């Protein structure tokens, strides 16, 4: 049998990589629930800490929720490659005949589906606790969706660079911070603008452009980073 | 004397310039010290190896 027979195509490699991580996450619901719980926790602790004033909560709502989402993503990114690194599966990925770029992208997609997407889904609930006006909730979901996509993609570069390093989590946070900032700014401010009834399209377009750029470029950087960290 | 006062902003202006001066001095000194330390350390190691040969 020639080695070319039965060699999976590129798309199925991507799919297989994503599917694997999704199954793993399904078996360990804690991985999905932890960031969600963190997000919800921040959402409930802030009103308790600053007081029930509706006006005040509405004012800080977009910012607080966005920061909470950013931190939740950050917490989960650390584990993106860690489990595979520890049990040797990462090496298998590296020597696989499939392009590493696609395999890494598959894992990143799975990460977004298990972390970013759930955040988007429960965000309306959190928006309610901050009394956010209805017209801003849709924008909140949209910006969180686009923003978390960028964060998963760009965060995977940081995760690849720091996998297995001593104090990796702290370092990862430091590395992600400058990258997550534009996302935070565009996202949170767009939601604020929407809540005030102003036009918010500029911020949303910027987020969309950022996500597209990240999708096009980040996987390559992640693959390079994976190779470097595991030589 | 009004050079020192800088129209009332003296403290601000002079602290900035002093800070800048300090940064330059520190950078220069640190680079020199570090280079010398690395060099001395290498000297010791390499000469020790040479003695043994």
């Amino acid at each position: 049998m020639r080695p070319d027979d039965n060699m999976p195509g590129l798309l199925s490699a991507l799919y297989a990589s994503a599917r694997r991580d999704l199954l793993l996450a399904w078996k360990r619901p804690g991985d999905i629930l932890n960031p969600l719980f963190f997000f919800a926790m921040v959402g409930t602790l802030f009103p308790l800490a600053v007081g029930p004033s509706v006006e005040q909560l509405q004012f800080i709502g977009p910012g607080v929720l966005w920061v909470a989402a950013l931190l939740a993503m950050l917490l989960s990114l650390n584990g993106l490659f860690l489990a595979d690194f520890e049990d040797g599966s990462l090496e298998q990925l590296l020597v696989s005949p499939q392009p590493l770029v696609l395999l890494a992208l598959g894992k990143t997609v799975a990460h977004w589906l298990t972390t970013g997407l759930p955040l988007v889904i429960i965000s309306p609930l959190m928006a309610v606790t901050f009394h956010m006006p209805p017209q801003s909730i849709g924008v909140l979901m949209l910006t969180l969706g686009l923003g978390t996509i960028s964060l998963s993609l760009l965060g995977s570069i940081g995760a690849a660079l720091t996998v297995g390093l001593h104090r990796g989590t702290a370092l990862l946070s430091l590395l992600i911070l400058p990258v997550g900032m534009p996302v935070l700014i565009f996202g949170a401010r767009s939601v604020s603008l929407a809540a005030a009834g102003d036009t918010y399209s500029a911020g949303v377009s910027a987020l969309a452009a950022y996500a597209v750029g990240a999708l096009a470029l980040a996987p390559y950087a992640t693959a390079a980073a994976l190779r470097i960290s595991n030589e | 004397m009004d050079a020192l006062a800088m129209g009332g902003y003296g403290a601000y202006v002079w602290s900035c310039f002093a800070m800048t001066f300090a940064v330059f001095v520190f950078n220069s000194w640190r680079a020199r010290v570090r280079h010398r330390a690395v060099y001395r350390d290498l000297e010791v190691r390499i000469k020790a190896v040479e003695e043994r040969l």
Partner: protein
Amino acid sequence: MLTFLHKMASPPHFYGLANTLGPWLAVPGYLLIAFGAFAGLFVAPPDYQQGDAFRIIYVHVPAAYLSMMAYMLMAVASGIGLIWRIKLAHAVAAAAAPLGAAFTLLALATGSIWGKPMWGTWWEWGDPRLTSELILLFLYFGYMALRSAIDDTVKADKASAVLALVGAVNVPIIHFSVEWWSSLHQGPTLVKEGGPAMDPAMLYPLLAMIVGFTLVFGAQVLRRIRTEVLYRERRTNWVRHMILTPEGES
């Protein structure tokens, strides 16, 4: 030309060249800074809006400019090292980082001090440049932290190179996002957008300072590169030979 570049990439040649070149950069650099500082402090007329406080511009702007130049140097050197596998390029990046971070801190400190009499606060989030500088500082810290977290030099070089490049791509985006953000409510800025529409007596000292800072930075980074090279090449024959031959080392 190509042989010149090839020679330059060779550590022993660069080591010697950097030694001779250093003073040629440092001396004119310090002279320009001395001239610029004197003229900026005593010769240039006070600004009609900010009075004598505007003189901080003569250290703040060069520091900020250099903080960005150093990062660009770091990113370009990282790219060259990564793509063409030139070890010396990685040494350049490693040497530039702490200097760049120092200038960034200086820019932030002088910016903050300048802000106090101007805005009444030690910090103004509405100033996009100050905020971007802060993020630049985090970029530098991240780079240096990553370098020190990885023991193997080659690995550290490559990993931090990737980081530097990703950061470089992000710098314009960060700047753009902060500008947009601060434009949402008009915040006061430190340096008037007018720029060189300045009175020449005010402008020349500034130019002198910028060029002077750059030259001195060049001299300091060269010295740091020499130290990096010395350490990285510590097991090679040329280093061994150089240390064993009695000669005056600085």
